[in-house]
């Protein structure tokens, strides 16, 4: 059994005009030490998925259904007291913007010690020793002085190192990293990402990596999810999805990478933009932007317009598209032609 198993997770926001479904039928698993990537456009539900795992979604959001089984225990209906033992202790998080994540009026040491004290019965002296050890691990220069410094005295990269140290403080089983390098200077993005990966490997920590960056996902994760309008539309081994995307949206995403365009010509793009969650199109949420929605006669397919596609197992991947079988056939034809 996997360490983390998410089944049919359904998250809604209770708004005046009725519930908005931010996540529906999200399923995935994560094994010990495994790296899972979650990609998608802004607003696709990546962060909501990450935050709902520990029930940290802000009101009026709530988990309306599904299950989150971590280490054999159900988290989705758990009381706050029980969840608190998991948060930061067994599953910890790294946020996007290191400039905003640390409390400006508490010293680095205080923010690390309180974390340890919340989960373990230890003295401040012991807690500081552990904190110092972790700061050493994230390769911060002169860690002793950092403990008594305040966040504003540290640069963005250093702060993200501190946050990684905090995430590792209690030797968690899983780290959820929500775009951990997006807000950083490009020159240190790779540095921080390498550090995170190295430490996760060293301590056998599972990593859920949320990002826009397909390049990073393809390099560092073993499996990936592609999200669109609150649903997972394709998931499977990263290598297979990157090399042979089956959902038209995933194909579009990969096609939109700058390196896929012919030099000198315009970059490829997916026409249109993601629909608002409160006003989803009928049937497949992607159909207004999908290049495969019309049949041979140029008329839109009824299934795409009327029915929300279920998951289809296709090879090692699961794809939510009515057209998977045809698309796969076509791809195989294409690749045969290429070979010929």
């Amino acid at each position: 059994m996997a360490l983390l198993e998410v089944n049919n997770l359904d998250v809604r926001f209770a708004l005046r005009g009725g519930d908005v479904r931010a996540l529906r039928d999200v399923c995935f698993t994560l094994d010990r030490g495994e790296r899972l990537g979650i990609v998608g456009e802004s607003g696709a539900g990546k962060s909501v998925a990450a935050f709902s795992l520990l029930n940290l979604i802000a009101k009026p959001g709530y988990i309306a259904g599904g299950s989150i089984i971590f280490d054999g225990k159900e988290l989705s209906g758990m009381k706050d007291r029980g969840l608190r033992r998991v948060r930061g202790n067994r599953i910890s998080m790294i946020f996007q913007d290191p400039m905003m994540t640390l409390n400006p009026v508490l010293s680095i040491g205080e923010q690390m010690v309180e974390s340890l004290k919340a989960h373990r019965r230890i003295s401040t002296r012991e807690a500081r020793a552990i904190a110092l050890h972790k700061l050493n691990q994230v390769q911060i220069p002169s860690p002793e002085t950092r403990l008594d410094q305040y966040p504003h005295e540290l640069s963005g990269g250093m702060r993200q190192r501190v946050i990684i140290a905090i995430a590792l403080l209690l030797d968690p089983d899983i780290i959820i990293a929500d775009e951990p390098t997006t807000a950083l200077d490009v020159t240190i993005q790779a540095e921080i990402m390498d550090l995170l990966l190295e430490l996760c490997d060293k301590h056998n920590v599972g990593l859920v990596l949320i990002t826009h960056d397909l390049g990073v996902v393809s390099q560092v994760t073993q499996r990936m999810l592609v999200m669109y309008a609150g649903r997972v539309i394709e998931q499977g081994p990263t290598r297979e999805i990157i090399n042979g995307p089956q959902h038209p949206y995933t194909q579009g995403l990969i096609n939109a990478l700058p390196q896929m365009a012919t030099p000198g010509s315009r970059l490829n793009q997916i026409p249109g933009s993601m629909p608002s969650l409160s006003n989803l199109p009928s049937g497949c949420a992607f159909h207004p932007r999908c290049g495969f929605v019309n049949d041979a006669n140029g008329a839109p397919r009824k299934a795409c317009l009327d029915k929300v596609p279920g998951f289809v197992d296709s090879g090692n991947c699961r794809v939510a598209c009515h057209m998977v079988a045809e698309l796969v056939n076509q791809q195989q034809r294409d690749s045969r032609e290429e070979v010929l």
Partner: protein
Amino acid sequence: MIAFLIKRLFHAFLVMFVISVISFAIQDNLGDPIQQMVGQSVPESERAELREELGLNDPFFVQYLRFAKNAAQFDFGYSYIFNEPTTEVIMRHLPATLELVAATTLLIVLLSVPIGVYSAIKPRAWLSRAFMGVSIVGISIPVFLTAIVLIQLFAIGVEVTPFPVDTAWGAWLNDLLSTDGGMPAYGRGNPVNVFGTWDTNFSSLEGLTYLVLPAISLASIMLPLFIRLIRAEMLEVLQSEYVKFARAKGISLRRIYFVHALKNTMLPVITVGGVQIGTLVAYTILTETVFQWPGMGLMFLDAIERSDIPLIVTYLMIVGLIFVITNTLVDLIYGLVNPTVKLTGKPA
């Protein structure tokens, strides 16, 4: 720290200079002191003589320099109406006002923080909504009206009989709506003298009862303001990423509210609070008049009515000084609470 104090001292000096010029300039346009000092029967020639003797005919800046020289030695001249040095008059009235302001500040701090925090943590609870509703009423009603209503309710007492008196339940309900009165609402009672010149109301329960109604009415505008300010700041802080991160670390809600959030909430509140304590001293004029509280406010109004210019000027200078002192103290406290501020005296 030392450099900061020196810099602030210089600022304070500048502010006091401006205040002194303004308050001194007032005397040119405020009544005729000779009229107040002597009766109707004194002939014009004697008045002119007296005017000359008092130096009231000298040019403005000569008079100002004379004033500034004396002011530096805390000598602001004689009060026309009390016939004694104005500083002594002020010193006699200062304790009453400072005690009223202290009681009010205590009331505001003790009530606004818990209420503001509560209504930010539970914004939808009926109690929070009630606090918000009442606070709007508090802000909207002027101090003197609040004071008069308080006197009517708790000093005089109100007996209403909307329900039949002859039935048991009617009498009970009438009783519930009526108030007994009996709270002191005039003067300070018998304050106890401590260290020489200072009369205090804080030493006995009886003395404290005299402070209740004046302090409540003086707090009636500031308290709601602070409740709303703390609530708004706290609501914003609770939305912040670092509060979310603290939750993700598994920190208890109590620690998140009272360590992570409250400390950040209080930063702007401290800044506003410093200015408002000074304003509170100014507001005492109204409250002290209604309750005949023998403080500086009442004295100041008296001085204006009777054109006691030296006393008016002294009052303005002292209130200005109180403003400057509280603001400097607040800046010091702010520097201690906020680690991003360094009290070095030069911009970081």
